[in-house]
């Protein structure tokens, strides 16, 4: 590899942000933003976890009164929203934003400022939601906030307004993030990285980005309807005025079920990256896994009614959606068997990341099977709204999101921090989490089959639910301790961990060819890819004796064609800017004004947003380095 110090110094001058307060707020570097995504969503995981533990304390025994009923309602709503919306999606965005450009050999995302805007909007929407508990008026209707309980008659106060508007803010963040990832992954791949040679993680990221484009607008529509009905006296859900409460359910679940795949598919994509590396062989059935990923996203749009089997609808509709739900499980099964076959045919290296990966496969299968149960209509009628469903959704979400995310952390943190995580602490953390999780959530199946309903703030002692709930609460705390061990491990390894080097795991994808942590500009020479496993073949990706691929006269990265990745152009990458942050602040102000119905303020904030957006987009000369 030809390295010249002038090239490196030019690239560094072009791409590096100085360590100033301005740069801290203005940065558009995908690595910084990715790490911020990860840190912020881990914070939300901790907040949601504390809320979960509060609920478990309340349910430890029958007839406890640690929390008042209204407080309990608010806490379980916040717990659901925080975990499903503000933790599970953004943490995967964090991995995608950090890793996708490195995996495809690009220098940054396609729209770096939009990337910054997505992050700030995500943060702003989370802050927006968490204003409400400080007013004592958090949303209290569950994370899916069924009408007509959410109307002003039953939910006075600002809670549901904060709910609806923070969700709209969040959809803006996720939609812009999805657009950015789609264009980045489809257009900025390294020359030669044809779509058939793309890492599987990027398949799932692209799929969920498209799912987000089509799945999020119904939520926005539902939240607009809710706000109009609550504060402007229009009629959508109120039955007395001719509305229907099922309109909310239809729109919400048309968003809600694709959202499940949005927070699930990238995690399976991570497993498809991690399992082969620690089995020391290419994944078995790459085309099947890739196709199954795309089909899961597609068929995921045809299953939403299975959340509503008990509301009463035609047998035909129920049968179709029941069949759809089971079809999706086939695609997941294909992935599971691909991982199992890869492990079977490979030589397993038992690292912590692999522990978490295998653990998550186990939990995912349990959660998936209980999902097949609940997809069957009579079983669904039996267990609907019981703890069986709580057990199912936690097995799916923790098995296919939290455990893969921890596998991802143990796998990719050495790349991000340059330090290896402590394996001994990591394995301890895995076993504590795994045992705690199963002790906490497996008995919920039982409680549900015995008839314990979900979303109750307490239960009388004659029901005999005490014993099982004690086990659940202890298990939940053990799970929390397991997560804390990993967090301690992170801070310990940040200081004391062994240096990682470029490719500590002997992995196959391009992000491992950069330094750990990567340079601000990624790799010095834009890599060229000739196979699915660039670092395992005998082709030298960054071999470039003519210095043709350094692109060091501006902030540049090549663009390629969608399918074959033939280079066709050079993309200019904009510099740091405060505009994304200002736009976020003005939109935040606008939504706050809408909550309090100060429409002139809202209009002012909107006009201010337009001014900021115009300033953002104004064409200006890019920085060039001249000698």
């Amino acid at each position, binding site marked *: 590899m030809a390295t010249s110090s002038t090239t490196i110094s030019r690239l560094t001058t072009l791409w590096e942000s100085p360590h100033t307060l301005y740069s801290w707020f203005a940065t558009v570097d995908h690595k910084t933003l990715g790490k911020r995504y990860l840190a912020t969503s881990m914070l939300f995981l901790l907040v949601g976890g504390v809320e979960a533990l509060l609920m478990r304390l309340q349910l430890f025994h029958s007839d406890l009164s640690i929390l008042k009923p209204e407080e309990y309602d608010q806490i379980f709503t916040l717990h659901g929203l925080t975990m499903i919306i503000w933790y599970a999606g953004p943490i995967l965005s964090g991995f995608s934003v950090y890793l996708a450009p490195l995996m495809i050999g690009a220098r940054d995302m396609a729209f770096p400022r939009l990337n910054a805007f997505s992050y700030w909007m995500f943060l702003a929407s989370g802050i927006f939601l968490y204003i409400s508990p400080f007013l004592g008026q958090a949303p209290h209707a569950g994370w899916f906030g069924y009408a007509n309980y959410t109307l002003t008659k039953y939910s006075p106060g600002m809670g549901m307004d904060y709910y609806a508007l923070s969700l709209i803010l969040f959809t803006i963040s996720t939609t812009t993030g999805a657009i950015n990832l789609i264009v980045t992954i489809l257009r900025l791949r390294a020359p030669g990285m044809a779509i058939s040679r793309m890492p599987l993680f990027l398949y799932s990221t692209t799929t969920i980005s498209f799912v987000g484009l089509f799945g999020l607008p119904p939520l926005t529509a539902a939240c607009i309807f809710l706000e109009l009905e609550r504060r402007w006296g229009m*009629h959508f859900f109120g039955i007395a005025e*001719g*509305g229907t409460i099922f309109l909310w359910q239809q*729109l919400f679940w048309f968003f809600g079920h694709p959202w499940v795949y949005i927070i699930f598919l990238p995690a399976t994509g991570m497993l498809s990256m991690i399992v082969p590396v620690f089995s020391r062989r290419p994944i078995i059935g790459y085309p099947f896994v890739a196709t199954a990923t795309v089909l899961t996203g597609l068929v995921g749009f045809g299953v939403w009614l299975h959340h509503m089997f008990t509301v009463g609808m035609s047998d035909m509709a129920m049968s179709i959606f029941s069949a759809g739900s089971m079809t999706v499980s086939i695609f997941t099964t294909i992935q599971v068997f691909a991982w199992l076959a890869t492990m079977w045919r490979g030589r397993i290296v038992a690292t912590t990341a692999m522990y978490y990966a295998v653990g998550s496969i186990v939990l995912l299968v349990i959660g998936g099977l209980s999902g097949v149960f609940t997809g069957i209509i009579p079983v669904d009628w039996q267990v609907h709204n019981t703890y069986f469903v709580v057990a199912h959704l936690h097995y799916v979400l923790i098995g296919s999101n939290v455990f893969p995310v921890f596998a991802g952390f143990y796998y990719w943190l050495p790349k991000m921090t340059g330090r290896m995580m402590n394996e001994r602490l990591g394995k301890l953390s895995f076993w504590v989490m795994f045992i705690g999780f199963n002790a906490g959530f497996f008995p919920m199946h039982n409680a549900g089959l015995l008839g314990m309903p979900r979303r109750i703030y307490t239960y009388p002692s004659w029901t005999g639910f005490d014993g099982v709930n004690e086990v659940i609460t202890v298990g939940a705390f053990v799970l929390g301790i397991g997560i804390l061990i990993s967090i301690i491990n992170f801070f310990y390894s940040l200081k004391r961990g062994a240096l990682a080097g470029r490719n500590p795991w002997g992995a196959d994808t391009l992000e491992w060819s950069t330094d750990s942590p990567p340079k601000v500009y990624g790799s010095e020479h834009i890599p060229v890819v000739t196979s699915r*496993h660039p670092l395992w073949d005998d082709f030298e990706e960054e071999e470039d004796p003519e210095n043709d691929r350094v692109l060091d006269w501006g902030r540049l990265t090549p663009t390629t064609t969608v399918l074959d990745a033939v280079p066709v152009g050079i993309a200019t990458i904009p510099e740091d800017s405060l505009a994304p942050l200002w736009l976020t602040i003005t939109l935040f102000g606008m939504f706050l004004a809408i909550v309090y119905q100060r429409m002139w303020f809202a209009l002012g904030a909107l006009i201010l947003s*337009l001014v900021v957006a115009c300033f953002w987009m104004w064409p200006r000369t890019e920085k060039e380095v001249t000698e």
Partner: protein
Amino acid sequence: MSTVQIPPPQVSLATLPLDQKRGIHAMWCVIATEAMLFVAMFGAYYYLGSNKDRWADHVAPKWWLALILMAILLASSAVLMWGEHQVKKARFAAGRIALWISVLMGVGFLALQGFEYSVEWKDVTPYSDTYGSIFYTITTLHAAHVIAGLVMLMYIGVMPRYGDTRRTPHKPYKTAALYWHFVDVVWVFIVLFLYIIPNFQRYMHVH
């Protein structure tokens, strides 16, 4: 470890032109998600109507006004297309004039829609019943998109330089125009679902 290898594409990167397509690709994504928003709205319109004996046809809105509005929007799209063509041939002044004509027609659309609202308001308001709520929500949401499209067009209209230059790599004229065409197409669907079909049903009821 051996894997299947295919020779790399033999292209020199340093000599490639600047990329001009990312903007339009992002705009297609925006249009996809906005289209889905309107699909959700139309879905809500029909879902709300599904449990009622008579839905829109008892107060079917004036179809001739909607058709005039549609004609205005489609004409503005045609003018803008002509403008795109001019810009492509580097006749920037003509492109700018076409753009401002489209903007004027868009403003005219909004004014006429305001008049239409004042006519419809006598029979039906957003607060009168579910039908009024969803009718005004969909049409106002579309008007908001028209305003957004107008802002984008006006912004392009005052931008210092546009077209295929090295300094404006995102082909802003074409991108904004694409959004404007999308807004116009949405109005065609609104005319079909909210105006033509209810009037047709009303005709069937009467005769």
